[in-house]
Each structure stands twice: as C-alpha cells, then as structure tokens.
C-alpha cells in the first residue's frame, strides 16, 4: 500500500516520516523514531502505557492510525518531558513520592499527569482520579502516583 508522509513536531524537534497510513502511532514512535520509552501493555487502549500527547491531549497511541495524525501536530512522549521545566518538576515529583515501581506504566502515567497539570495545575482529588482513569498500574496501588501529582501541582511553574 502506498505510504503517507507526515511532518510532526516530536518532543520539540521537527520530524518527517513515511509509513503505511494505518500503521499504529505506537509503532511509528517505538520502531521508526526509536522512542522506546513509550510502552505497549495491551494493544487495545485499556492499559494506557502507550499514552502520548497530541497537541497536549493524551491518547493511547496503540489506537491511533498514524496517518490520521495531521501535519504540524505536536507529539510529546516521555522522552520529551525533561526538556521543559514542568516536565522536570513532574519527574522529580514521581521520584520523590516513590510513584514508580516496575516503571512500565510510568511513561503513560506521566503523560496523563502532564496533560492534566498543563491544563489545570490546581487539580482536585476528583480531577486527578478522572485524568488517570485510563492508565493501569499493577504495582503501586496508585497511592504514591496520586501523591506525586499533588506534589508536582504544588511545585508547578506558574507564569
């Protein structure tokens, strides 16, 4: 099948790629761009480990046909977090709260947290639960993840 060509801004850098139109965004990210921080846990949008942000909106990249992501889209994966002050604040909070155990869900979980705090840096408990309902963690029982999000919110750089 004929490939499509897309130019995106990925983690702050412009990238042009060609791929079959229905290739999963997850595969383009992991295999074509080698951002292997993005994880596949279920392949059907349930676990959230493959969550990335498209123009700031979290999506499960296993359910996105890469051809459907238009030119000019800003894609943020876990690897892009440390390039921003907010991203670093979030990472620090996850480390100091003890929110990461096996770490396999963490890249997706961080993206859900980042999407939330970018829009709403003073989230209520309910906001936090709602924003992370699409991410499954089997290790932590979520308690320390919630603490990390609260901690990140406290330290969130506000302009």
């Amino acid at each position, binding site marked *: 099948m004929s490939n499509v060509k897309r130019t995106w801004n990925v983690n702050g850098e412009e990238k042009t790629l060609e791929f079959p139109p229905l290739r999963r965004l997850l595969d383009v990210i992991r295999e074509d761009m080698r951002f292997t921080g993005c994880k596949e846990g279920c392949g059907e949008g349930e*676990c959230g480990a493959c969550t990335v942000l498209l123009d700031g909106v979290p999506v499960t990249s296993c359910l996105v046909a890469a051809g459907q992501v238009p030119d000019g889209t800003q894609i943020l994966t876990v690897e892009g*977090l440390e390039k921003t002050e907010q991203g670093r604040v979030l990472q620090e909070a996850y480390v100091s709260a003890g929110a990461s155990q096996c*770490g396999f869900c963490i890249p997706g979980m961080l993206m859900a947290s980042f999407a939330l705090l970018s829009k709403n840096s003073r989230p209520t408990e309910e906001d936090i*639960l709602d924003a992370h309902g699409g991410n499954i963690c089997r*290790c932590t029982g*979520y308690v320390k993840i919630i603490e990390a999000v609260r901690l990140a919110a406290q330290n969130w750089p506000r302009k």
Partner: protein
Amino acid sequence: MGPKRKIKSGHVGADSTRVDAPDKVRGRAVYTDDIDVPGCWYGKVVRSPVAHGRLRSLKRDEEFDWSRVSVVLPDDIPGKNIADLFIHDMPFIAHDEINYLGEPLALVAAPDRELAEEAARHFHPDIEELPGIFHMEEIVDLYKKQDSSLHSLGEQTTVKGDIEKGFSEADMIVTGEYWAGYQEQLYIEPQAMIAEMTDDGGVFIRGSLQCPYFINPELCLTLNLPPEKIRVKQEMTGGAFGGKEEYPTLIAGYCALLAMKSRHPVKIVFDRNEDILFTTKRHPSWGRLKTGLKKDGTITAIHAELLLNGGAYTTISRVVLARGILHAAMGYRCDNVFVDGRIFKTHTFPCGAFRGFGAPQATWAFESHIEELAKACGMLPQEFRRKNCLVQGDVTPTGMVLKDSVGSPAVLDQVLDRSDFAKKLKQSSRGNPKHKKWYGIGLAFFAHGSGFTGDGEARFKAKGAVELDWIEPNHPGVNIRISSTEMGQGAFTIMDQIAADAISIPLDDVRCPLPDTSLCPNSGPTVASRTTMVVGHTVHGAGLKLKAALEEFASKEVFEGRPVVLENGRFVCSGEALPFRQIAASYLDKHGRLRTEHQFTLPPDLKWDQSTFKGDAYPAFSWGCNAAEVEVDPLTFEIRLKKVTACFDVGRMINPLNCKAQAEGGLVQTIGYALMEKMGIRNGKYDADRMQTYIVPTMPDIPEFDITFVEYPYEFSPPGAKGIGEMPMDGLAPAIANAIENATGLRCNRIPIMPEDLFTLHRAKHQNG
C-alpha cells in the same frame, strides 16, 4: 540533568527514594522489547487448539515456503523433551497426549514477527479429542464423592495433637466451605525473552524474569548443555508478581531452541492475549474447615482441607501447596490441628506462582471461617481474635514455638484502635432496609512465613557478594552481586541501603546491577518474601567482610598498622581521616577487584521434618491485620471499598517508604482478587483473555488507606528484616467479605464477590425467609 534521588542520612531505616526511578521517569529504562538485537528473528509457538486429546499427526502446508523459517519439533530438541520444572511430567513440546489448550506442538522462528505468525498458521494438527476436566466445582464434586478418577498432582498433611480428642472436647462444631477463583498477575510488561548462541556453543538468555538461576539449570536437560554454557541475564522487568517466577523457563527454552536451530538470536514477546491465555495464574482453591469450639471461644480442634486446581502439569504447585497448608490454620491457638492439602489436575494451563503463593487462598478460607467461629460462640470478631491469636511463646500448627519477633497481638491492637473498630462495627447496617447505603466493617488477622518453607534456606545456602570495583570511570565503589531481581518491588534500593550501611559508605558509592549468572553467586530466586530478609542478610554480611578487609588494607598501607575504622565514607585513625574513595582507589590500583561473599544460615536449633511437615515452618513470620470498610448500594448491590486500615510487622523496616509502597500495591491487587478479577473457563479457554475483559482496579477504585507498621526485628539475621512482599495479598479479601456480611447480612464464601452474587444470596435468603 535528570531528576536526582533523595538520600537521607543513615541508610537502613531511611526513606531513600528508589535507585531505578530516575531512568524510569525519563523513559530511559531499557526493557527486553526495547533492546535492538541485530539480526534478531522472532519466535512463535504453534499451539494446540484443543484442551485434551491425542496428537495423531502434525501436518504442514506444502505450498508454504518453509525455507524462510526455522521449525523446532520434538525431534529437534538436543536434550530431553522434558520441561525440568520441579517434577518431570511436562514435555517441552507435546508429542502424544495434549493436556491443555495452547500446549506447544511446534516452535517457529522467522526474520519478522508476521512471517513467524503466518508460518504458525500453516501447521494443521490432527488431534483425537478427549473429554476434559476444567473447573474447581468439578474437582470438589468428585473429591466429595471420593471418586478415583481425580488425578492428584500432590498432597501433604500436617498433624498436631489429637484431632478426635479435640472435637470430643468441643461444645460446638462449625463448618464452612470457601472458594477462590483464578487470579492473573497482569504485570503490565508482557512476557519477553531473547536467546542467542554464544561462540562456545552455549546460549545467552536475557529477558523479563524473576529467577535467573531457575532457567539455568532447568534448561540443561532440554538443551543438553552444561550449566556454565547457559548464561541468563535479567533485563529491566515490568512487573512479575510470581508470573515471571517459573514460567520464564518455558519461553526462554522456546527462544533458545529456536536460536540453536536457526542460528539467529530469537526474541519472543507475547501480546496481551497470548500472555493471559498461556501463562500461569493463581490456583483456584476450595477450603473446607471444621472447627471445634468451647462456649467461651476456646478452639479445641481445627480440621482444614485445602484443594488447589493445579492445571495440566505439576510444575511449582507442590511448593504452592506447602505454603498453603502452612497458612491454612495459622495464627490462632489450638492444640489439635489436622491440615490436609491436595492438588488436582485439570486440562488448563498449569497454575503457578502469584504473590502470596497459596497463603492468600488459605487465609481467605481461614479468616472467613474465624468470623463464623466468633458468631457461633456469640463473641465479637475482634474479641474472638484477641482471645485466640498466637502471641510470643505460643506454638503454631506445625509445632513451631514463637520465640521472638512476634508482632501479634500488636498488629491486631493497632488496627482495632486506629480503625475505631468496635464503634464502627456497631454502626454496621446488616442489611437494614432503612439505610440508604449499607455500611460494614470487617476484620482479618494473619501471619505470613518469610523465606523458604521449613529448612529450605538452610539447605539452599544462599550466597551474596559485594565487590569493590570501578563502578564508573574514576569512581571506585561497590557492586552488589546477587541473583535477586528488581521487578518493581524495590529490592535494589534496599540492597544499596543495606550494603552502604554495612560498609558505612554513602549510597552513591554503591550500585546493584541487574543480575547475570556469569557474574553473580546464587542468592536464590526472588520469591517467598525472602529477598530483604535472606539476601539482605548475605549482602550485609559480605559488606561487613569488605569493610574489614579495607580497614586492614588502610591500616597496613596508610596508617602504619594502627587500628582504622571505616565510618560514614571515611577511614578514621586516631583523629586522622581519609576519604573512602581515596583508599578504595589505591586498593584497586594495587590489588584489583575485591570480592567478599556471605552465606545465609539459620539458627542451629531450627528443626524441620519435610515428610511430616512438622517443626519450624519458616525462619520467621511476618504479622498483619486489615480492617476493611465497605459501602453496599441496596439498590444495585454495588460494592464500594471505602477505607482500609492495615498494620504489618515486617521486622526492621529497611526503607519505610518502600514498605508502604509494597503494602499499598499488594492491597490494591487484593481488591481486584476480592471484588473484580473474575476469570472463568469456556470451551477449555479462559474467558477473560484481554485487558478489556480481565478487570483490575483503576485509580478511582482505590479506597482511603491507613497503613502503619510495628517493628519486631528478626534478630538472628541482621539487619533484622522479615518479609513484606506477599503479606499484603493475604488478609484483605476475607476482611472485605467480613465487612460485606456486616453491611448486608449476606455471607459470601466465594471470591471474587460481585453484585450478582449478593443478588443471588439476597434472593435465596428472601425466598427462604
């Protein structure tokens, strides 16, 4: 600059953040599927479409171009076609009788995954189908009829006192039956393994696994290789929970056989569906308890039976059963105890290790039963437990005297106090039709054996090592060499703390690399809540030896033979001090690497009889108590867990932050076990075979937690830790069932407990009443 770890002064007992976290939050941790192996092929297992039958032939489509792929059939196995998992009853690749749906019939490898999958579709097995047995209900039915067609995979009994005499002394006898379903580990990283041949004709296996020294030697027989030619390395592991304990030997074997045949590295990464369908689960169980009681609540006799659905082959089930029966009547004072456990075969994938390892099933049954005992003698649940719980000096069902490190009744008292149990019990709804929401609180008290069963640790002789070496360019430091794995539980952080503490150097000068059988002594598998207690002790001991050796070196080489002490990263000698790194560097320059090793031992008076299952069942017990508060909607019978109050005694806490994290994670897995994670069998196949159908808790499902610890250190083995990993899995399910009973007046003897079950019970009660 990435995120930094926070290191507080003092190592053991401090909330050090995790050593693996900075890489993980940056997406830099490399898991098996992230490794780019040049020339790597992909493996695929050709599986039986029927659960029980006899393989007549395995035909292959002639039009398919087989030259593009490598195929392994039973005849291609260099050694014996036996999966060397404890008992030799399972073939690596089925060749005659098929015993579960999905049993391997052949293996294929191809340059890419799609071709391997396509090739697998061109096999056509001709199988004579035979009737199968699948469900726990079938097992129990046949067991009650004493039907000889049941196929036993193992049994064990332990007896204390005189059970008949105990019943004859009783004022009343209470019986109950308790069922528990399958549970899938559902680690988020599916099983993943890579094998490649080495120049010396051996294989190098690496992947997502818990126990490097299980795979080697277990593959020796199959691959016909000596152990030194099978190198196993753990890669970053995205959760395991027992699911990567014994199972990885199989997937490693598939990769190794294919690598040897194809002469290419071979990788297998399961997709979620394959992972759920064709890997181990927690054993479904049935427990029957019969207990003799005096009117005052004294227990005169406990007769406990525990049946496990073992699946198609024995594998690790007898070890699971051993832990099961040792917990089946544990925790309460009674002179006359009879425990009998059995594993029966079904035509399903062999069940296996899962956090808790038989103890959650046993505790589910026993703590549900305890609730009924309290009721039978008219006592409150907390009074009954407080009266009968084992305390220091008491004797367990196997005859073990609890000499020291006994966190009972402290954990029970702490939970009763912190949860305000007595008051809240009175507020429980008990199905009161006037209540808008039914509230209930429930209790469970339990113990969990740390380390291998009985004298297992004495026989195993776990060894750990530390090595003075260059841990980075120009950075002399200490590598910890153990075969224990980091799979998310925090072991490496704890080992760093223990080693740094023993040697008295900063945490930054210590690292714990992922284990590799070519570099690490065998400290044993990462199982049985043994890592901190047993392996931590070996690291502590090795660290002390390294410290002594370095002090001697410093004394001799630098301080003219005067006594030297290494403390807080400095060699101190009568007022003078030199930094650790300086002396370490000069040692390395002069002598090269320094390695010290230490072996775990048990107290000489520990006694265990493996045939009668009598004696000291574990080096030590951890203790726990949980109170669960639930709210049930009378409209729909939906169950909402509101709060969990938990207290644990895990000996000395090496890292309180991590202890709490372990407790939280385990408790939430147990919420799934108790209330959500339902898995049945339809046409020989698990029905919940995807993440969309196998339902685990999400963030909004978790309750409020109040988790505390009381410390009763295991003094025989510095630094005094006992096990924590498994215990959070033991008690919450019965605590929830007991809370549901107090909320609704309905007794559930089967987990998971669903609104559908409450509806059925409610209707039955209504119709009968």
